[in-house]
């Protein structure tokens, strides 16, 4: 295809992507280098019969004017990146000097907002993914053995948790585990503890969120494994059968090795998707004990009157850095695939 024709074909989609994906990243970076204007203070002298007092007040007019002239705020360099709410180098240095033990140091650092959110995000990523792969594989194996007539219906039932948006999915579960909902109440009866609530302790909330993550992601792993199972060659399986291999041995030594690349793919996609975990935290009202990086950005932006563009931009950049690290293996894989294709 000649360059010119190619250009006109790709132009609309390319423009859309550049304007609304490429540019926002640049804009986010630009914002992260700025910080909100300070309020301009002025001294006002109030005199009454008993003498004069000076008060410090916000000069509303001047502040407004400054905001109009300079809506993005003043330049702050990498100041926002290293402040207390982000990488917090000063606080870490201080904690390093003042802590008497490693444990104390760790506690101080993990109480800083950014590291707290990073800890949850990574914990969520890495505890959700392995069970998802395992469960997805088992479900795919067992649905694969079913008769064709009922497969469709069961596959439909299986993929439901993946279809609904995370917010709705987590709400649906949240209403059930509420201490007054069906599961929450049953657990109270089971453990004979009327005050037991999955929302009460931070550990239980984390576990709930992780279980939700597994529930939501397993269907995806299932679908991919299920499709891959159809491509497993039959000859080696038959040969193994003739040699007397049991069903388990056939799965272990023929099917699983065949599915390794697929499992890697699922793992990478799962890690990348879960790194942006955010909606379940809102659905489960878990803001108090579990914050993620994406949630931090949302928090900075949700207040219409006082949006912290600088802070949100800095967290965004750090999130993108995390994604970049997770994305590298996928990119290398695609690169190689493309090379072999040509």
């Amino acid at each position, binding site marked *: *295809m000649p360059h010119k*024709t*190619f250009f006109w*074909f*790709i132009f*609309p*989609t390319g423009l*859309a*992507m550049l304007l*609304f*994906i490429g*540019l926002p*990243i640049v*804009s*986010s970076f630009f*914002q992260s280098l700025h910080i909100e204007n300070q309020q301009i203070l002025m001294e006002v002298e109030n005199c009454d019969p008993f003498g004069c007092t000076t008060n410090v007040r916000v000069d509303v007019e001047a502040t407004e004017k400054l905001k109009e002239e300079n809506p993005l705020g003043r330049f702050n360099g990498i100041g926002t990146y290293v402040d207390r709410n982000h990488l917090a180098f000063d606080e870490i240095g201080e904690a390093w000097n003042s802590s008497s033990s490693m444990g104390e140091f760790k506690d101080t650092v993990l109480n800083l907002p950014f590291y707290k959110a990073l800890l949850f995000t990574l914990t969520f990523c890495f505890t959700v993914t392995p069970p998802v792969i395992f469960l997805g594989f088992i*479900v795919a194996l067992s649905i694969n*053995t079913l008769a064709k007539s009922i497969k469709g219906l*069961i596959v*439909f*039932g299986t*993929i*439901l*948790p993946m*279809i609904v*948006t995370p*917010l*709705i999915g987590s709400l649906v*579960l949240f*209403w*059930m585990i509420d201490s*007054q*909902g069906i599961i929450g109440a049953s657990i109270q009866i089971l453990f004979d503890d009327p005050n037991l609530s999955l929302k009460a302790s931070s550990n239980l909330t984390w576990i709930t969120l992780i279980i939700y993550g597994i*529930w939501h992601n397993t269907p995806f792993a299932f*679908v*991919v494994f299920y499709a891959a199972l159809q491509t497993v060659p*039959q000859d080696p399986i*038959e040969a193994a*059968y003739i040699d007397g291999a049991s*069903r388990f041995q056939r799965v272990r030594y023929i099917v699983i090795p065949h599915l390794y690349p*697929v499992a890697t*793919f699922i793992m990478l996609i799962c890690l*990348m998707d879960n790194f*942006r975990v955010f909606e379940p935290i809102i659905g489960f009202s878990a803001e108090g004990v579990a914050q993620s990086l*994406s949630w931090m*950005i*949302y928090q900075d*932006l949700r207040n219409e009157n006082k*949006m912290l*563009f600088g802070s*949100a931009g800095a967290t*965004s950049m750090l*999130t*993108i850095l995390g994604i970049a690290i*997770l*994305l590298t293996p996928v*990119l290398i*894989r*695609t*690169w190689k695939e493309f090379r072999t294709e040509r």
Partner: protein
Amino acid sequence: MDTRLNKYSKQLIVINSIFILFWLTISIFPFIWTLWGSFKVKADFFSRAEWTYALSGFNTLIETGATTTVKAYIESWTEGEFWRASMNTMIVTVSVVSISLFLGTLGAYALSRSTYKYTFYILIAALIFRAMPHITLVSGYLFPFFQLNIWGILPTTIIVLVAINQPFTLWLLYSFFKTVPKELDESALIDGCSYFQAFRYIIMPVMWPGVVTAGLFSMMLAYNDFTVTALLLNQENYTMVPKINAYLGTIEYGGNYMWAVSSVVSATAPLFMIIWFFQRQLISGLTAGAVKG
């Protein structure tokens, strides 16, 4: 295939059936429970005293005179203005699907037919764009959108969702067009068609299976989106998902909680029906993603 291989022992069949039943319970029951509960009053769906009230509708009977009630539905659709939210969702979904398919088919067709190296870099760039968390993009939108005074309205959101959706659509349609034989449009070119004519008269008639799959994914993205719609729309223009979240934010009176429950059902039901019809395309799309990254 050898039938001996697929003979299962009785034990295996039993264990397998139990496992599948167990799994289906986990994946479907929450939705059935919510559907059932949406016809009760709050005191039953969240019954402190006795959870079986949710089944029998004990309080619903006392409050409304029958064991089921559609009060929450009527109130949320009228008083809660859920009709407006669902209309907005309709507008957003239909626009996003049609625009992104239009742009996507053109782009993906060109990518699949060009033999130059830059197609590869465009596809890699799309892959990187696809991995960007939506919330980080939103943080880049807000400031310029405020300055340009285009924040809060539906068209802005539609264009943003189209753009966010493009990378995946491009990849999906690219792998689909690769399976369409080149000879088809090449012969048209030899007969004197321009590339646009070849696309219009040769490719368009055969591309519908791929387009349906790509459209399904665009639809799910637009219909389900929370991040973009919650932050880029003003309250009045909210689509269904942020609207449900807004109901939860205001729990001053008990009724609102059931509004959210009934709205969840109202929002989920159409989606499930569509997926029921297009299940095969959905699965083929996910699998294409697996093969092609």
